[in-house]
């Protein structure tokens, strides 16, 4: 009898995804042989990553006339030429920019009837199912914005249909904001305008907690398992600070598990399941962001890959390995969902500068932050004298753990206070 072979899995890779090379390598052991697929432009821009990648994985740079989704062309027969000789059982990604490419390259994926990662499609489908109260219209030209804002008639958000990381977003509250976009924005392709909902404050958390939660879900062919509900720090918005008339929008942290009551947490899972069903999301790990509203929840967006940083929080609580689960479902195996997270709580905290101009002014050192009870790791700390853009305007990036949510909240509060005081003299307080 022939030896069973390990399935080969393509992973469309890029920098700053939700899983790094080491996490993918470790998670793939005993699950699959990972074959990295990297766009030529990504490989050229990240030689260090490629150097490491080639030590661990079979790597293929996608170039030489292949027409790739996201390169300004529709996927066609060309993409099949890429994977056919590689003998891949599946293709997945941990990077938002590569979702369409991974879907197109997946040998078992039928041509989709809609792109579930297009946020305008999400609004349309979820609206049809009565799962969102947000109205949205496409914007592909300046006049679409003028017409759309007049039609929707409420505070809105102008944003790309396909982008992550808060890029290209602009809050539109009044005609003045519309005129500003007409003056400053240059790229009008692939945008949407949607109404903004007034959030409700988090019912159980401290005042620094944001009015949103996320739900991490693994979908198999047969069922959806919600692996956890996380609280969030508020999204930071600096009006007009982004390129081309956009606002600068940054997420600032996650806390696992959520402090919502069991009933509300259950309602968040139930709602997320209905959203994923409506969007016909197939086997994969998803990250769904929900806004807390006076009525309950409304969906912000659904991402077709696990969230950055959250797999680390699950690991800290000895929960399931989300990267391994993502690889397992991508090759068609049943994921190892257990065990549930251990008692305790964990957080990733990465607050941004309130003012983006000027150099960093601080005497804080990483080791000073590490001395705060509950701090496990300081991945990043803005350095005195450096330009704030060097850390993408993040003050720091820390990971914390507590025996319970109360202990974790105390640690997060102390970290935020220390950072606020430690950077106050830099013109940022």
């Amino acid at each position: 009898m022939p030896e069973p072979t390990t399935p080969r899995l393509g992973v469309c890779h890029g920098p700053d995804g939700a899983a790094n090379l080491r996490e993918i390598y470790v998670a793939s052991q005993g699950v699959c042989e990972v074959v990295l697929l990297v766009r030529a432009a990504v490989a050229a821009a990240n030689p260090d990553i490629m150097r490491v990648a080639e030590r661990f994985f079979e790597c293929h740079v996608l170039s030489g006339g292949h027409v790739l989704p996201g390169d300004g062309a529709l996927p066609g027969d060309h993409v099949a030429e890429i994977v056919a000789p590689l003998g891949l059982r599946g293709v997945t990604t941990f990077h938002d920019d590569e979702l369409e490419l991974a879907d197109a390259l997946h040998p078992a994926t039928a041509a989709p009837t809609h792109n579930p990662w297009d946020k305008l499609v999400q609004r349309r489908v979820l609206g049809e199912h009565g799962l969102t109260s947000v109205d949205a219209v496409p914007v592909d030209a300046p006049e679409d914005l003028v017409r759309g804002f007049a039609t929707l008639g409420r505070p809105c958000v102008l944003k790309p249909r396909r982008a992550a990381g808060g890029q290209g977003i602009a809050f539109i509250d009044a005609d003045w904001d519309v005129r500003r976009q007409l003056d400053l924005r240059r790229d009008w392709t692939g945008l949407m305008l949607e109404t903004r909902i007034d959030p409700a404050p988090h019912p159980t958390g401290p005042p620094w907690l944001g009015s949103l939660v996320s739900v991490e879900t693994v979908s198999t062919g047969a069922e959806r398992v919600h692996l956890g509900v996380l609280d969030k720090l508020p999204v930071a918005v600096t009006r007009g600070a982004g390129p081309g008339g956009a606002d600068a929008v940054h997420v600032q942290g996650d806390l696992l598990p959520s402090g919502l009551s069991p009933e509300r947490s259950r309602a968040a899972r139930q709602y997320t399941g209905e959203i994923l069903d409506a969007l016909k999301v197939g086997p994969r790990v998803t990250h769904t962001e929900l806004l807390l509203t006076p009525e309950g929840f409304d969906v912000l967006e659904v991402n077709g890959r696990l969230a950055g940083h959250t797999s680390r929080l699950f690991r800290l609580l000895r929960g399931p390995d989300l990267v391994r689960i993502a690889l397992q479902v991508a090759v068609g195996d049943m994921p190892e969902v257990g065990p549930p997270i251990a008692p305790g709580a964990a957080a990733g905290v990465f607050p941004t500068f309130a003012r983006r101009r000027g150099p960093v002014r601080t005497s804080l050192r990483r080791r000073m932050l590490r001395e705060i009870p509950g701090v496990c790791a300081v991945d990043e700390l803005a350095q005195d004298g450096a330009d704030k853009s060097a850390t993408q305007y993040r003050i720091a990036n820390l990971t914390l753990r507590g025996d319970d949510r109360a202990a974790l909240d105390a640690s997060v509060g102390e970290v935020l206070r220390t950072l606020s005081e430690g950077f106050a003299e830099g013109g940022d307080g």
Partner: protein
Amino acid sequence: MENRVADDVVLAEWCDVLDVTAPGADDDFFELGGNSLLAVTLIERIESRLGAEIPLERFFMDGRLGTLLESVRTAGAR
């Protein structure tokens, strides 16, 4: 080369790459903020200073300082 000298090199590079002091044997490089690129930097620095070949795969699988020290000793630093 004596184990003590090799240990000192590993500890010094570990502390420098992660910006930590007084690490413990159970400290995990990747839980302390290390990533894939930093791991390669650390291993290459140690290899360069000690002339030992450190299995990066093993370090990826187990990022604890104690395990790295053991790997370096096993590798037979010159």
